[in-house]
């Protein structure tokens, strides 16, 4: 706007602004002292790694020799020459599109359903739904339930009742793998978002509901849509972020369930592909390119969902 007006004497103004900024920073030095311990480690272990990953993704690097610049070669190889990566992308999308929204809705609906119960009952059910997400590697109990021989409990019951006559290879048969993994991940998905929604529902002003009833809100579905959801939009936004991140990161839990690599790569995800090249083959440049693709995909997914949620109830 004021480019033209500023043009004749840019230097003094720039210097003045810089001096003012430095003065401001100096005045607030106590704030920086408070921020520093956390800030230094946050930058070192979260911000810098993203920048390093982007840089390394344009190199060939095996940890023994110095990285060599290869420009876009890693990305070209990923999308044009790596069939397994394309399978991983497909699986990741299927997985994220199913578990992301479903886990989000499960968190929201169970939080909503227990909201009006007696506080003691509510606390008990909160614990019951939340427990799977904090119970460490207890999810491996599912592998015993779905074990592929007659000692597997599900197979045992199905055989005993005569529904099947030979055990189903639940965790190695490509047709069964993905559905089962999705069930297990959904089982442990009522985590932080669930607690945030419970808190959000508790914080809604009760008089809004009384006013709503007077204004002609007839049933609880209308109440949910016109009063409850718009009142807890900040929590819904935050819950969405946590659910999306979780649905992409959950690949860490898939690997112990279906083995690595899974049969025909039927449950191979981008995260599994990243671990393959980063931890096993030590192709750090190539693995970094996978990490950058994952990063961009996740941020894009977050932006799209936020845009949808911000229109809620308008």
């Amino acid at each position, binding site marked *: 706007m004021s480019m033209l007006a500023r043009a004749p004497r840019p230097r003094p103004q720039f210097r003045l602004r810089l001096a003012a*900024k430095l003065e401001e920073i100096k005045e*607030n030095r106590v*704030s920086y002292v*408070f*921020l520093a*311990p*956390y*800030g230094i*480690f*946050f930058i070192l*272990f*979260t911000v810098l*790694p*993203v920048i*390093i*990953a982007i840089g*390394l993704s344009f190199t060939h690097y095996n940890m023994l020799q110095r990285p060599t610049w290869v420009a876009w070669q890693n990305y070209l190889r990923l999308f044009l020459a790596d069939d397994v990566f394309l399978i991983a992308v497909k699986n990741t999308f299927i997985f994220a599109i199913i578990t992301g929204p479903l886990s989000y809705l499960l968190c929201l609906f*169970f939080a909503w359903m227990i909201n*009006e119960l007696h506080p003691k009952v509510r606390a008990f*059910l909160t614990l*019951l739904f*939340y*427990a*799977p997400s*904090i*119970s*460490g*590697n207890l999810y491996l*109990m599912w592998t*015993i*339930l779905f074990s592929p021989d007659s*000692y597997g409990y599900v197979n*045992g*019951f199905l*055989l*005993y009742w005569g529904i099947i006559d030979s055990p189903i290879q639940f965790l190695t048969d490509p047709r069964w793998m993905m559905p089962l993994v999705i069930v297990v991940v959904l*089982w442990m998905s009522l985590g*932080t978002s669930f*607690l*945030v929604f*419970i*808190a959000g529902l*508790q914080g809604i002003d*009760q008089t809004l509901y*009384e006013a709503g*009833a007077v204004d002609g809100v007839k*049933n*609880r579905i209308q109440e949910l849509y016109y009063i409850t959801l718009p009142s807890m939009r*900040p*929590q819904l*936004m935050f819950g969405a*972020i*946590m659910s999306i*991140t979780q649905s992409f990161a959950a*690949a860490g839990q898939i690997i112990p369930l279906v083995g690595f690599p899974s049969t025909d790569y039927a449950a191979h995800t981008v995260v599994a592909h990243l671990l393959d090249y980063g931890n096993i083959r030590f192709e750090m440049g190539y693995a*970094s390119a996978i990490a950058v693709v*994952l*990063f961009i995909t996740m*941020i894009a997914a977050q932006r799209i969902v936020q845009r949808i949620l*911000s229109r809620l109830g308008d």
Partner: protein
Amino acid sequence: MQIRQKRLTRSAGGDFVIFFVLFLGAAFSALPLVFAISNAFKPLNELFLFPPQFFVRNPTFDNFRDLFVLMGESWVPISRYLFNTVFITVAGTGGHVLMASMAAYVLAKHRFPGRDVFFAMVVLSLMFAYQVTAIPNYLTMSALGWLDTYAAIIVPAWSSSLGLFLMKQFMEQINDSLIEAARIDGASEFHIFWRVVMPNVKPAWLTLIILSFQSLWNETGGRFIYSEELKTLPYALNQIIQGGVARAGVGAAVGVIMMIVPIAVFVLNQSKVVQTMGAAGINK
């Protein structure tokens, strides 16, 4: 219940549907937990019955006894694994709560250049999975010479972004006049932080303790720790489970032991955690 009777918008049919769905959900959620507890108390012959029995009939402590025998046989004494896990959990959690609270205080209550950019980066970091930064972090640890030391696990835990986010959102609810009053009385910023702000955000630091505890308690050391004497309890217990199908009962006992601690910690502080989460909204 009072609220229910006041509401005009409730139907009996709706109540029934809600209770039915809640019952199904709760049963599904509890299934593996109950199964693990039941299996942990099963004698060997009940673990391999056909047709299988879901519930234990003759409960026994055999599996727990076997677990202690197996732990006694390990090359590094089990107390060492336990010490490692407790040390990592305490040091990681303590540092995280202190550093995140200090940073959250200035992000919530001070104005200074760079504040909004920094917080935007913290929110952005909640949006991607930790796997994105795994490789550079490994290289950083290697460059710092922290591979195969406690620091590789503890120091990154200090800068967890969810904890800072929750604490900052919660601190914003504190009334500014409280801080102003202390400032007029001549209190230093550190005094204000420690004596005025921290006592008012007790639910939030309990929540940070719990979240940090949960992740560190289950830490296996993964790629960062090689030395057997620095490995953690979950690592040692996983090794025992991997003894194969004959360890099914012991495996369940391990699962139960590892699950009890975080669940107990959560139960004791549940209302505080939910209170903190209430502040965790994002306005856009």
